[in-house]
């Protein structure tokens, strides 16, 4: 039944705002002259992705499918973490995940930018792991999940180390009006805003506006957060207006494109948002690129 793929990454991007960047590289269809006034070309960066845990029998195939999906959808780079299947993660568990993430960088050169995943509750072992991954393995950031609310003092050493190493923290987040099962310590936009106030030098990414419950609540909770708190667009929810409200409320410079493995939802909602091409260019990669360049 399968037929040769009819849509190339190039032709897809020509139909989306991401084509703005690639058109300049000579890969996309020609674009209007107004682009000359727009920002510099930038890669399309998915700021929220995951590689498969090697406990899954088909982990290699799953990782390969992720890269193939990125190829189809015009995503140049994926910022990936590997999470332990059960949480709270043990130090042994997150070290194993991070070692696999480092291997993935070798398997997919230029495509995978790894986050170091730790459970801050592991104390010094978590701090040591972050330092090892960033300094020795050249990871691009830190991924924190739901073991602790981000304003819990136990998280502070990780935040302070991320500031020292000049890397962002992608923090799992959500806000529902009914409890999220199994996630008593989930952080929300309000917590991330508070953490941003406490640590203005940190670069904090509030995860998946499309996968974290009431997205209108989250956007409003982040409205007065400092400029060091970003919001990623990932998640399976594709409600009309979600991207526009985030941009209108927080400003386009604080919005980062992501999929969190909901690939066509992630790309499609950016494609569908009523934003100008330069705003889409910023969301799709330029903003994340600026964060990545913090390390120098």
């Amino acid at each position, binding site marked *: 039944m399968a037929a040769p793929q009819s849509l190339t990454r190039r032709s897809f991007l020509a139909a989306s705002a991401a084509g703005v960047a690639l058109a300049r590289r000579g890969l996309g269809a020609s674009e209007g002259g107004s682009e000359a006034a727009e920002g510099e070309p930038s890669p399309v960066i998915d700021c929220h992705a995951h590689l498969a845990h090697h406990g899954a029998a088909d982990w290699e195939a799953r990782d390969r499918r992720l890269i193939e*999906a990125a190829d189809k959808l015009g995503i140049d780079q994926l910022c990936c973490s590997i999470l332990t299947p059960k949480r709270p993660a043990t130090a042994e568990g997150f070290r194993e995940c991070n070692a696999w993430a480092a291997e993935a960088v070798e398997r997919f050169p230029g495509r995978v930018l790894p986050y170091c995943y730790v459970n801050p509750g592991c104390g010094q072992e978590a701090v040591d792991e972050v330092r090892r991954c960033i300094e020795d393995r050249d990871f691009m950031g830190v991924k924190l999940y739901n073991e602790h609310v981000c304003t819990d003092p136990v998280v502070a050493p990780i935040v302070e180390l991320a500031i020292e190493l000049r890397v962002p923290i992608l923090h799992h987040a959500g806000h529902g009006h009914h409890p999220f099962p199994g996630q008593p310590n989930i952080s929300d936009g309000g917590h991330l805003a508070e953490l941003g106030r406490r640590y203005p030098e940190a670069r904090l990414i509030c995860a998946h506006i499309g996968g974290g419950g009431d997205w209108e609540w989250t956007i409003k909770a982040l409205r007065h957060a400092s400029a060091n708190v970003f919001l990623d667009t990932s998640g399976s929810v594709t409600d009309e207006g979600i991207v526009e409200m985030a941009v209108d409320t927080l400003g386009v410079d604080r919005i980062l494109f992501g999929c969190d493995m909901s690939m066509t939802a992630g790309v499609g909602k950016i494609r569908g948002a009523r934003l100008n091409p330069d705003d889409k260019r910023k969301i799709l990669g330029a903003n994340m690129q600026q964060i990545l360049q913090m390390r120098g």
Partner: protein
Amino acid sequence: MIIDVNAYLGHFAFRQLRHNTADALLRWMDEKGIDRAMVSSASAITYRNTQPANEELAHAVQSHRDRLIPLAVINPFYAGWEDDLRACHEQFGARGLRLYPKWHNYALSDSRCHDLIRAATERRMLISIPIRVEDYRQRSWLVDVPDVPLAEIVELVQACPEARFVLVNGAGYTGSLGKKDNGLPANYYIEISRLSAVLANEIGQIAANLGPDRLVFGSGMPFKYPDPPLLKLEVLDLAEEIKKQIRNGNAARLLEWPSR
């Protein structure tokens, strides 16, 4: 041509919808290349008496019947559903029903529900069932409405073999509904807006296992951006002929339109 089997007009109780009038929806459909859409009232999801919402819908689509295909929302446990069904079909031209068993608090297995489906089917009306209205994680503090379990759909399609069902806003059809030789009547169609087209590629799996003639395009407009399902059609590793079936052929057959 693209036929959207999953669209709405009107207001939703828990979130502002934009582009939710007939004119606005049509403009949006034009932007996206969607030719026709099956629409029901979003307001009817939370109305006790849904008929005024069906009347509003009928009025809204009256001068756009070439493109907007009305579906009526009816609760078989509400007094006078038989009268409402007759009015929706005969006066308003509804081509189908949209059922909300969880929002309207009844069981799909109840004989009254089967009576409604049977009566609609006798009128050659489709039965559209949204598996969910919105993502469960964002539900209001006022409600705790679950998704319709697919196991209940399995029982329903077996119990009403003459009916034609369109399952929208669903995912996870890896059980019997998504498999050939599942012992179920071939009386249901699966809409793609929440199905993956890459990674697990649920659309490809259903096309291979159940058959491409059982997949239909839907967007969820104006609740959702139409771009993700349109993008799915672009990136799917399926022959163009199959994509055409999903875009319009299967829905046209459902609507009993002459083949083009």
